[in-house]
């Protein structure tokens, strides 16, 4: 069991309000990802849920029970830290066994659980090693192993993959997703990596300056961003934003269209421009175009669309997939 509810949770460090007040419901078994720019309070929010920081106000409920004043150990949560926070003087086995030992479980029970966790995480050959003798990915798995043996109500991850190289990050991403499908335990995952957020989440929470901008499934956020911030934050490369007369024609302050929703042509189209930089990724090509009407625009073209820097191109936005925003930056539906 592991549903988590935040009721007007606030946090300030001294006089700075880091989190001015957040309401959020996380269902049991959900994979929730917190994303947002650096310093927006993702880690702080996670630490509040973990109990490593005291709330300044509001309530935190786990399975409907108020745990706002409970110490971390009493909340039944497990956390995986960005630095792994393994105990350097203990073997991998002892690291994984530590929470069970603190729970005063019997030796043979501990042994069974540790070996099972090691098997799931492919750590069986490394049980006698010290953390210092492991690679980054192996350390990460030990940290996860230490979290899963306790069978917590929910897992909290704070940017667990940010110290790994791109290839390993891809593998670990899949491993964590598989682990989630296998355990069906609630997971709260902090990241600033778009791909992690989009691929792993059941539900993404977009944070900005301690406020929730939007909550929804990855595709919800991609298709119907609630405001300019979410529209600009989700999706890579960024959505193109256009203000002024062209937006006025659509009864909006700002209009936005994603690079992949622009049809490109060498002969005709609604708008025209000059190609600045063309990034050929093979499968597709990212074009940074200096448009005649609105300045820089990014467009994603098919890999077969061959243009060179300095060439003239024409663009036609897909009107059906255009996003419109009012003066306050809120989406107009």
């Amino acid at each position: 069991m592991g549903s988590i509810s935040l009721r007007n949770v606030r946090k300030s460090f001294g006089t700075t309000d880091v989190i001015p007040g957040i309401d959020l419901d996380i269902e049991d078994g959900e994979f929730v990802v917190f994303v947002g720019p650096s310093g927006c309070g993702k880690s702080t929010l996670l630490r509040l849920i973990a109990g490593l920081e005291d709330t300044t106000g509001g309530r935190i409920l786990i399975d409907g029970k108020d745990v706002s004043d409970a110490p971390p150990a009493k909340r039944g949560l497990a956390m995986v830290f960005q630095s792994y926070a393994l105990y350097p003087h203990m073997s991998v086995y002892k690291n994984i066994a530590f929470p069970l030992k603190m729970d005063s479980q019997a030796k043979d029970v501990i042994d069974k659980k540790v070996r099972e966790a090691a098997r799931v995480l492919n750590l069986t050959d490394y049980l006698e090693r010290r953390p210092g003798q492991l690679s980054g990915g192996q350390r990460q798995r030990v940290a996860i192993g230490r979290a899963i043996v306790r069978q917590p109500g929910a897992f909290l991850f704070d940017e667990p993959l940010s110290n790994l190289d791109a290839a390993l990050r891809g593998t670990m991403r899949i491993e964590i997703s598989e682990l989630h499908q296998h355990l069906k335990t609630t997971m709260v995952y902090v990241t600033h990596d778009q791909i992690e957020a989009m691929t792993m989440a059941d539900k993404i929470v977009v944070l900005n300056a301690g406020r929730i901008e939007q909550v929804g499934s990855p595709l919800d956020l991609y298709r119907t961003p609630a405001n300019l911030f979410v529209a600009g934050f989700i999706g890579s490369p960024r959505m193109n934003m256009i203000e002024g007369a062209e937006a006025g024609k659509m009864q909006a302050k700002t209009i936005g269209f994603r690079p992949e929703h622009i049809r490109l042509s060498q002969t005709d189209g609604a708008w025209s421009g000059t190609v600045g930089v063309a990034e050929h990724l093979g499968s597709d090509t990212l074009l940074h175009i200096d448009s005649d009407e609105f300045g820089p625009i990014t467009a994603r073209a098919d890999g077969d669309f061959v243009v060179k820097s300095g060439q003239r191109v024409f663009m036609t936005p897909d009107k059906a997939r255009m996003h419109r925003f009012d003066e306050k930056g809120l989406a107009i539906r």
Partner: protein
Amino acid sequence: MATLHTRASARLMMAPSVILLFVWMVVPLAMTLYFSFLSYNLLTPGAHNFIGFLNYSYFLTDPAFLMAIGNTLLLVIGVLLITVIGGILLALVLDQPFWGQGIVRLLVIAPFFVMPTVSALVWKNMLMNPVYGLFAWIARGLGITPIDWLADVPLFSITLIVAWQWLPFATLILLTALQSLDGEQKEAAEMDGAGAVSRFIYIVLPHLSRAITVVILIQTIFLLSIFAEILVTTNGGPGIQSTNLTYLVYAQALLQFDVGGASAGGIIAVILANIVGIFLIRLIGKNLDR
């Protein structure tokens, strides 16, 4: 220093200082060794005859010798116990954020800057004196007969004085070690359900083990040769109750003018110190290579 040539020139460059250090150490050692085989007493002029191991057997069979070894060990172990345990506790306290932390830290370090003779005299006259010492005054205030510290428990008193001097050193080293402990590790342990005591035993103490080793090794080197504190407080007495090896050698050489006997004692002290050193390195030195 990759090539043969650079290595050779490096040796050449280092030679003067190495030779100087070598001579500096070897000449006194050789002379002491030489004297230790002579009948050489400043009160009996004349030829200094070679008398073989007589000085050694004389020194080793002296009843004061065993007593001195015992006292030396008791002193070293006592001071180590107090400073290591006290140092850990003080470091834990000083690591907490509290008002006036800077001043308190400075005060804790202060005893280290007081010379041994001065601090021993302060303890002897202001604190431990049975008539006008602070401890006696407190004892009388509580209605207890004051203890004559330096006469009744001389070795313990000296242990206290020396421990007071070395506590800051231990605290300082352990505090820096404590501050280098990764905060996330403590938080992880907290999440894992470890209480304050478990966190101390399983996380903090192992982290401190290297620093504790350094404290023990360095202090032992200095504690084996405590002298000034004994000289200005008890003079090794009453009787020989607070005489350690260093003081015994001193008494032999400068109170009995027996250069030969004192040299033999000095050589024995050197050998014993090395035994203790090897023993310590074997026992706890492995903590260092990790």
